[in-house]
């Protein structure tokens, strides 16, 4: 009997085996470079580690309680929160404004679309170097402008009061291209007929914006808000080039803090605990977004 059944099972699972073949590269890579390191990070966060990043002494939740009591970490979390607050809302509102402008059917609009999306083609490193010069206290454009207007000079990146704000301004600029591109795509997917019937009714621009455009755009807006939030929490390059986390740790955002703790201080245990914190924050943001999104978003 069994010998008769075997070909049956073999044949039944044929699809599964072929599918596995197609999925194998992805599954293998995800296992090695996503799932394994995630579990490993959680595991390491309960240990003191040696130079090679191997677990040495089990300390339970001590890495976490150490972080909660460390002013450096709390400062870093505060800076990260403020950074997200400064960059995400303004960035999205600006990108939406540009997308609405660029969605008008006018001559030469293609040129403006290209300009608005251009920052997506400029790497974080290149943008940061450009902004580093613009913020330069003596030669940079901002202070030259201030002195033209007879206003006091600002130490943009060297003053703890201003550094986070300066980094945020440059970050908003860096992210505008991508948000713009996504939002413009969303606007162009809105059915023209909706506007035509409202125009017959004599509805004004802002009425149409509030009643048609924004509701129809809500899935795209929801997507770009989620992506922007996640991106903001992951910012690293601009910090490394503009401020190295300073002055007096005022721009020590979480990913930069993880990087320093792990690869400069070689404290892989506490660095892992910070990485787990980052993971949890992003998880919560995503889940909250989806919970809120389900209620608010208007799908076509």
């Amino acid at each position: 009997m069994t010998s008769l059944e075997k070909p049956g099972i073999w044949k039944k699972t044929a699809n599964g085996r072929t599918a596995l073949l197609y999925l194998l590269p992805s599954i293998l890579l995800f296992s090695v470079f996503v799932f394994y390191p995630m579990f490993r990070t959680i595991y390491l966060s309960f240990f003191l580690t040696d130079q090679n990043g191997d677990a040495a002494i089990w300390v339970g939740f001590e890495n976490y309680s150490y972080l909660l009591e460390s002013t450096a970490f709390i400062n870093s979390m505060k800076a990260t929160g403020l950074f997200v607050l400064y960059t995400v809302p303004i960035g999205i509102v600006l990108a939406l404004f540009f997308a609405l402008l660029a969605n008008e059917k006018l001559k030469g609009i293609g040129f403006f679309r290209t300009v608005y999306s251009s920052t997506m083609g400029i790497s974080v490193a290149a943008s940061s170097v450009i902004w580093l010069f613009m913020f330069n206290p003596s030669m940079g454009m901002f202070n030259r402008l201030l002195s033209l207007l007879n206003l006091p000079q600002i130490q943009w990146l060297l003053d703890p009061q201003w550094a986070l704000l300066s980094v945020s301004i440059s970050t908003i600029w860096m992210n505008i291209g991508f948000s713009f591109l996504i939002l413009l795509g969303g606007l162009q997917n809105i059915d023209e007929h909706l506007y035509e019937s409202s125009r017959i009714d004599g509805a004004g621009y802002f009425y149409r914006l509030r009643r048609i455009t924004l509701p129809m755009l809500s899935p795209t807006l929801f997507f770009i808000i989620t992506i922007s939030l996640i991106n903001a929490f992951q910012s690293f390059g601009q910090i490394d080039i503009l401020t190295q986390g300073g002055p007096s740790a005022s721009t020590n955002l979480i990913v930069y803090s993880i990087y320093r703790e792990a690869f400069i201080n070689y404290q892989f245990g506490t660095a892992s605990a910070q990485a787990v914190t980052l993971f949890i924050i992003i998880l919560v943001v995503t889940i909250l977004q989806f919970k809120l999104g389900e209620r608010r978003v208007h799908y076509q």
Partner: protein
Amino acid sequence: MTTSLPKKIWIYFLLISTSFLVFFPVMYAFLISFMTGPELLQGKFLPQSFSLDNYIKVFDRLPLLNYLLNSFIVSVSVMLGQLAVCSLAAYAFVFIHFKGRDFIFFLFISTMMIPWEATMIPNKFTIQKLDWLNTYQGLTLPFFALAFGTFLLRQHFKTIPKELHEASQIAGLSKFAFFRRVILPVSKTSLVTLGAYGFLTTWNMYLWPLLITTNKSVRTVQIGLKQLQSQETGTEWGVVMAGVIVVIIPTLLLLFLGQKQLQKGLSQGALK
């Protein structure tokens, strides 16, 4: 559709002024890249002459050509790797019915919730243990599998008529032949979108190359910029900006050529 003239003028005014502001930093960098030290100190806005001295200097000071080539190799490898790995996976999700499909699909989704910065510590040690520091495979292989790319292609594959699949089975085409000879050619637009996206994001990658390259053998151009910026002090900013301009030209060109395509493709991927 007609727009009244005053409204048109108003919109053009907004378009011109805001796009000037957005593009200003790039223009500024471009102008600075032609300036000499004294010009910078005087605070001039326009350079005296468009001499290429700074550009020649930057190639002297940094193995920039070498870095550009490295960035190019790495970006093209990730692009091709992603296209291959993601299209294979997307094909399985759309055209093969198998047990556990939902579960594997869920696994793919869950990778999007894990920020890779949270996993970089073990990943660096994995690469180190494989002895892949300062190698192309260390820079590229971890990024071949991409949930976002798989979804983007899956969305497109789903729009392919099922009849095509049935016809190919009747014609006796094997699954792989169907994939290679039918699916891939009709999905060209999505593949181009994903390819451009993969190239762009890899070219601009910063943190991973910073961890994986410890010498100049495979170092990418982004890390080169950091190196250049920290080497040059004082009035050599013209040289630094020349480096910046050289680095952003390839991606800006790619974006200008593919902006329409990218916008369409990415916003389709954003919506289900």
